[in-house]
Structure formats: structure tokens, C-alpha cells
């Protein structure tokens, strides 16, 4: 039996051939090393994301999240729900808090769920993978399966918004959370504590609708990583990863910069540190190759 078991909520972007598919690949490898068993919530659906507010409204958004809770509660009783995507975690946890706090909302939500023969009774904790790693394993526990050091690589820990606000990781500050730096250091990498755009917003969904405004944010995030001496950016959020990596070429084209900064997930770093191959870590999913990590993986 696995050391820990969770009801897994991978989210739309983690699916096969979706924009964060390499997040899922590396998460699976990381969890294998830590002896974590992730069981997908049966037939899970989209959380609606933050930007769903405009057309989705309040109750429909909460109801679709409750559908996932009901599925987890029924099919994976007693297991915490774990999301890897910041927006999934936020959307789900926010819905759960609203439902916990209002009997009226719970009643209306169950009225909606009943249309599909489902019922939610208020169980199933909603957590982020980083919370699980830090709270259920701890930095020492995470270090235990380590086989290779990430020594010699300088990382800018880009925490971003939604893994950090409004919930964040327990005990961390909103303005300067340290957990990502601590994770980097746990695996022998150099965490650049002087990286000053750690919690800056990448623009989120507005990268599509307001590209210029978002690319200004992204430019700051990447430029500051260079200024701090970083060789790579590491992040816990799939939208941060995509926006910050994908638009570098656009910014180069429009603004004459020469950005070429790899943007990784913590799970990719950990997979390599646990002795996994570049493929296990999903490094073939990078648009900007992380050559130094590939080299460590090949050793």
C-alpha cells in the first residue's frame, strides 16, 4: 500500500497534449518516488477558472465544483482532493469555503446536483500538491528519496498569484513566501532570494484578451529573473508557466529583448533530483530547453 493516497484533480491543462501536460508527467514521476498514490476523481470536470465569472455567475460555478466534490466523496471516501493547478485549487477551495459557510448555498447546490442524481454532503478537503508535499512530507521527507543534487543551478522561484493568494501555504507570507526557495535548496539548487518579482501577476487569462498589458507583466517577471542572476525560473502554477515561457519570443520580437529563460515546474526539478530521466520530468515539453537540468538528468 502506498504511503499516502489522494483524490486527484489534474485539471484541463494537465491532460494529454494540453498546455501543461508536462506538469502531469513530472507529477506522476515525483509521486512515484514519494510513494504517493493519486487516483483521479472519476469523470471530473473543469473548475470554471477565475475568468469563468463573467458568463458563469456564482451558483453554476460552485455547482460544477461541487460535482467534483460529490464524485470524490462517493468514490474516494476519506481522501483529500489534491489539485496541481493553481486555478483548479483556488476555484475548488473557494467553492468549498462558500458551501461550508452557507446552508442556503449548500441547499441550492444540492438542488442543482440532484439534476444529475448526485449529492454533496460537505466532505473532501481541497488541497494543493505543494501543501501536500510540505505539510504531509516536510522538507526532510521530500529529501529522503533524493539521488542527485541540483547543485550549480540558480533558480528564480516564481510563486505567482493563485498558489499564494488568497489562501497560500500555511505559515507563509503573501508578500514574500519562502517555500519554493526552500524546496529548491532542499534539492541542492541555489535559490535567488533577491528575485523581486516573486509574487507578480503574469496577467492570467488576460494574456489572451489584453496581450500588451500582460506582456508588460511577463517582461518584468523574466527581466527580474535575469537581474537576479537566474538560469531558470521555477513555478507551481501551470498558467504562470505557460504565460512566462510562451510569450518570451513575442516580447523579444516586439521589444527587441533577448529572453531565453527556461520556466520549470517544481515537480520537474524534483523528478530529476529523484533520479528520473529528462522524459520522466517532461523536459521534452519545454519550449525553452532547460539544458542544465537535462545534463544532470543524463548523468
Amino acid at each position: 500500500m502506498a504511503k499516502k493516497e489522494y483524490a486527484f484533480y489534474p485539471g484541463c491543462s494537465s491532460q494529454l497534449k494540453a498546455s501543461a501536460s508536462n506538469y502531469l508527467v513530472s507529477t506522476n514521476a515525483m509521486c512515484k518516488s514519494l510513494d504517493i498514490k493519486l487516483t483521479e476523481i472519476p469523470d471530473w470536470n473543469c473548475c470554471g477558472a477565475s475568468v469563468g465569472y463573467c458568463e458563469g455567475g456564482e451558483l453554476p460555478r460552485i455547482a460544477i465544483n461541487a460535482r467534483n466534490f460529490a464524485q470524490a466523496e462517493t468514490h474516494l471516501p476519506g481522501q483529500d482532493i489534491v489539485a496541481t493547478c493553481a486555478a483548479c485549487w483556488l476555484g475548488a477551495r473557494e467553492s468549498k469555503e462558500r458551501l461550508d459557510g452557507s446552508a442556503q448555498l449548500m441547499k441550492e447546490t444540492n438542488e442543482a446536483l440532484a439534476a444529475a442524481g448526485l449529492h454533496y454532503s460537505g466532505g473532501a478537503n481541497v488541497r494543493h500538491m505543494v501543501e501536500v508535499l510540505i505539510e504531509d512530507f516536510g522538507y526532510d521527507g521530500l529529501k529522503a528519496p533524493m539521488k542527485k543534487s541540483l547543485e550549480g543551478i540558480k533558480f528564480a522561484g516564481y510563486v505567482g498569484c493563485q498558489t499564494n493568494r488568497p489562501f497560500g501555504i500555511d505559515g507563509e507570507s503573501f508578500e514574500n513566501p519562502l517555500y519554493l526557495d526552500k524546496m529548491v535548496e532542499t534539492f541542492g539548487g541555489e535559490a535567488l532570494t533577491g528575485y523581486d518579482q516573486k509574487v507578480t501577476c503574469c496577467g492570467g487569462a488576460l494574456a489572451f484578451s489584453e496581450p500588451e498589458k500582460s506582456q508588460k507583466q511577463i517582461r518584468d517577471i523574466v527581466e527580474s529573473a535575469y537581474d537576479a542572476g537566474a538560469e531558470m525560473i521555477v513555478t507551481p502554477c501551470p498558467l504562470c508557466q505557460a504565460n512566462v515561457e510562451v510569450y518570451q519570443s513575442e516580447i523579444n520580437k516586439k521589444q527587441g529583448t533577448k529572453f531565453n529563460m527556461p520556466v520549470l515546474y517544481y515537480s520537474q526539478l524534483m523528478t530529476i533530483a529523484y533520479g528520473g530521466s529528462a522524459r520522466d520530468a517532461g523536459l521534452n515539453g519545454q519550449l525553452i530547453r532547460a539544458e542544465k537540468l537535462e545534463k544532470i538528468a543524463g548523468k
Partner: protein
Amino acid sequence: MTTANQSAIERYRNNFLKEVEANVEEGHMVKMCMQCGVCAGSCPLGNAWEHSPQKIFMMIRAGKRDEVLGSDSMFMCTSCYNCIVRCPRQLPITHIMHGLANYAHRLNLAPKGQPTRDFATLFWNNAIKKGRVNELTLTLRHYFRGGLVSGIKEALGMQSIGLGLFLAKRLNPMEIFGGHGVKDLKGFHAIIAKAKEIEDRKKGFTA
């Protein structure tokens, strides 16, 4: 939609604050604002919008219904939650902005052609169509929102990124034929329809 708007005007007369409290997500917290302006200074898109949350809250109390519901400010929200964690009165500002945007959108008073209003609508409709987001059709529909010519131009501008994502196995052209989705789509749609029915009735969108 104008009927829903008219009945709201008649019902609340000159008390816009009351209307917001009753119909806008977390709207009951608006009156807690003490006008300190921390939200305005914390917003990553602070210089892009006409009215900061602080101003919006005061305008609500001053009964500036047309100005608030016609403002593009709420659509500048990136959902970064900086304003929420910094607000000394603990107003759920992000949620109120989302709620106001939704209310203005549903009453059809929100600015027409506002890019985030359009993208947000596209996103929700894309996500609920099959229960999971289809990133390919979402992106294509967004690029082609202004018609074929501008769409081709915009898509061509992004083609190197698209190719890169495809080669990295992070974009699947086959998604044009459907892509990922939930199995119990009928049940999923029934949940949303019921939830929408309850909400529309409560908030007067059905008029």
C-alpha cells in the same frame, strides 16, 4: 435583457447600493470599504482602468448605477487576489469585481466588445460545452473573434508559438474534432441548467 434591467431599476429606484447588496456576488461587503485606496495601489493593471475598486465602491454608494455597470474596470481584473489579501477591512474585492462584471454582463450594460468580457464568455462556454476546456478551439475562436481576415493575421502572428507547443506535445490539432470531455455530459449540463435557473430567478435575470 433590457427588461431585466428595467425591472431592477424600478425595484431599487435610487438605491443602487441595495441593488448591489442583493444581486452581486459578495455585494453585501461593499459598504465595509473605508476608502483607503490600498486596492488601487495593489492592482497589477491599476494604470489600465478608469475606476479603481475604491472608486467603484464609492460610486455604488453614491448611486452612480450607469457609470458603474457601464465601466470596463471590473474586466481589467486578472484575479491575482492582491487586493483581497491587502485590504485592511477584508473586503473580498476580487469577488466583488467578478460579481459586478457578471451583473453588468447579464443586464447587458457592460461595454460592448470589451476584450476580456468577450474572452471570459468564450472561456465559460468552451469549458461547459464538453465539461473540460478545449484549448485549441478556445484559442482559435479568440483569434477569429473579429472575423476571418483579422483572425488569420493574428493566428499567423502566433504560428511559431503554436508550432513550438505542438512539437512539445502541449497542443493537439486533433482537438478541433472534439478533444477531452466528461462522460456524463448530460448530467453535467443538467447541473448547470438547474444552477442557472435558481440563480437567474434569485437575481432577477429572468425578469
